[in-house]
């Protein structure tokens, strides 16, 4: 059975693994330049390109490995050839899915390792300097393209492709649906699930002039109205909430009228010094008894979160695989 699986799988496997190896080679060639460069912003194209590649790979695996694995057999009728040899459908499916899932995890692990290694100088920098142009490893945009999470995503995308293929029985339709569903999961997970995977750190701090990182203002009838403050985030942390609260702990939004006078007059012209403005905000708000409430995942949570997220996706893969094994009995 393994021979047949390999014989059918070798072309798609070689195509994807070939592309992964090619990316690895390009990264290996360009890395010395990155390490020696004084201004890493030159490397934005490669940085975001490699990030995109890690996000794209599981989708490609799901669509081009997962979906056709069963649907093409059903569409061409060859399932009735192979299911009538001395191999049960379940062991046939177990062999094919096992092979594909392991290959998917190897491909994703390889690409993730290469991209992590290539981007490590940038990640280190971004983790130390909150004002960096690049996001820290924990940031939603970067997180799932670092560490071991891509392995979980790849296994999930592959099994998702197989499962949707078995439901729809049409290769092209199943490919489209798999792509949409997987993209939706990739977007929804960091927004809806990841913040709750591990309990976040909370702190309420006094507002000082130095800790104010930004002021958000909206144009109002009497000039700009300050709405909210953001504070300097802890280095490398993923900030979930950053809000001003009053003495009772209730959110203050927009900021009270007392701070309106702190903004420089628009007629003053030219970028004025922010120092006095920040000082004014800090003094006024502290006098009112307001403090800043922050909820965040500290930088040290990177690996615990990676393990939990990978485990979640492997568990989802197992669930989908169980569904496939139940479904194969009724396929004809």
């Amino acid at each position: 059975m393994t021979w047949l699986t390999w014989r059918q799988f070798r072309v798609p496997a070689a195509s994807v693994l070939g592309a992964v190896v090619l990316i690895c080679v390009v990264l290996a060639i360009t890395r010395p330049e990155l390490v020696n460069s004084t201004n890493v912003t030159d490397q934005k194209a490669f940085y975001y390109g490699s990030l995109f590649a890690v996000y794209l790979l599981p989708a490609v695996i799901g669509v081009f490995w997962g979906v056709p694995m069963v649907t093409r057999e059903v569409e061409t009728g060859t399932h009735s050839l192979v299911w009538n040899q001395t191999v049960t459908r379940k062991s046939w499916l177990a062999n094919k899915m096992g092979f594909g899932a392991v290959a998917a995890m190897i491909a994703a692990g390889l690409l993730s390792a290469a991209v992590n290694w290539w981007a490590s100088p940038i990640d280190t920098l971004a983790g130390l300097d909150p004002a960096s142009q690049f996001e820290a490893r924990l940031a939603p945009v970067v997180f799932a393209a670092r560490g071991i999470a891509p392995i979980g995503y790849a296994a999930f995308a592959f099994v998702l492709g197989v499962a949707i293929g078995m439901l729809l029985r049409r290769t092209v339709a199943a490919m489209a649906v798999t792509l949409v569903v997987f993209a939706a999961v990739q977007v929804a997970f960091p927004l809806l699930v990841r913040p709750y995977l591990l309990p976040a750190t909370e702190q309420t701090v006094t507002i000082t002039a130095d800790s104010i990182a930004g002021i958000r203002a909206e144009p109002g009838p009497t000039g700009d109205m300050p709405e909210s403050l953001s504070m300097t985030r802890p280095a490398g942390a993923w900030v979930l909430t950053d809000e001003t609260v009053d003495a009772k702990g209730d959110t203050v939004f927009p900021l009270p009228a007392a701070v309106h006078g702190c903004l420089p007059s628009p007629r003053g012209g030219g970028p004025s010094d922010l120092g006095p403005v920040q000082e004014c905000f800090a003094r006024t708000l502290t006098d009112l008894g307001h403090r800043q409430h922050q909820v965040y995942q500290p930088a040290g949570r990177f690996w615990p979160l990676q393990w939990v997220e990978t485990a979640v996706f492997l568990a989802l893969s197992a669930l989908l695989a169980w569904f496939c094994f139940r479904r194969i009995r009724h396929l004809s």
Partner: protein
Amino acid sequence: MTVLRARELGKKYRRKWALTDCTLDVPAGHVTGLVGPNGAGKSTLLNLAAGMLSPTSGTIEACGGVPGSGPAQLAKVGFVAQNTPVYPGLTVADHLRLGARLNPSWDDRVAQDRITRIGLDPKQPAGKLSGGQRAQLALTIGIAKRPELLLLDEPVAALDPLARREFLQDLMETVAEHGLSVVMSSHLVADLERVCDHLIVLVDSQVRITGEVEDLLGAHRRLTGPRREIDSLPAGQEVVSVSHTDRQTTVLVRTEEPILDPAWTVSRLTLEDLVLAYLSGPVPTRPALEVLR
């Protein structure tokens, strides 16, 4: 011994019943023809027997076991599906390797001999084979697996008359050599007449008649005589079909007894006549007669 036993077997696809209340026994050691018009349930019955489908109602047993229930059962039953599917990207040799890897009972000598005899190039991709060659390749895999029961669903449908004759000839030789039981479906009686010694006629998803070809032919007579009502036939003569011309009445009856009425000219039937008579549907209880001139 029975190789295929169905009891009140039914299969429903969504809302439509493809097979209802099918009860039959197929004895071992025969080549059984499964005949019926398109959509009669032939493919459904064979797919149920192979375990490709599971029944909605009733039971079916192939070689004494539930179809598709495990490796031991799969080894006993071979199935070549309609349109004889093969992997287009795999070569002829790859297909034989597939058979060898997937079947502990694989007989490689038989497979190689057949491929050589048919004249298939082992290096040729199966996608480039003609319809006839594909059917031969699929049949080779089915035979070399050495099953007790081989199910063939319309194996010759895609073949030209010459290839059809060769295919059936070849099948006969193999059956004789290995002593396996075969159930093959076709909507062409002429194909089956050459190879089958047992027959099942399936109409509207129900079994109309089943039995050994010899017995069936022996038990049916065509009676031709002057035009008359047929109410007066003796007991024991079951009317299968009736047709009238201006002067003549032709009746097809099923009977074990000799025909004694001297008004009838009695003749034997060919298998095709017999099947067609059953396919044309149930007999009207009282055929309308025109007034004689």
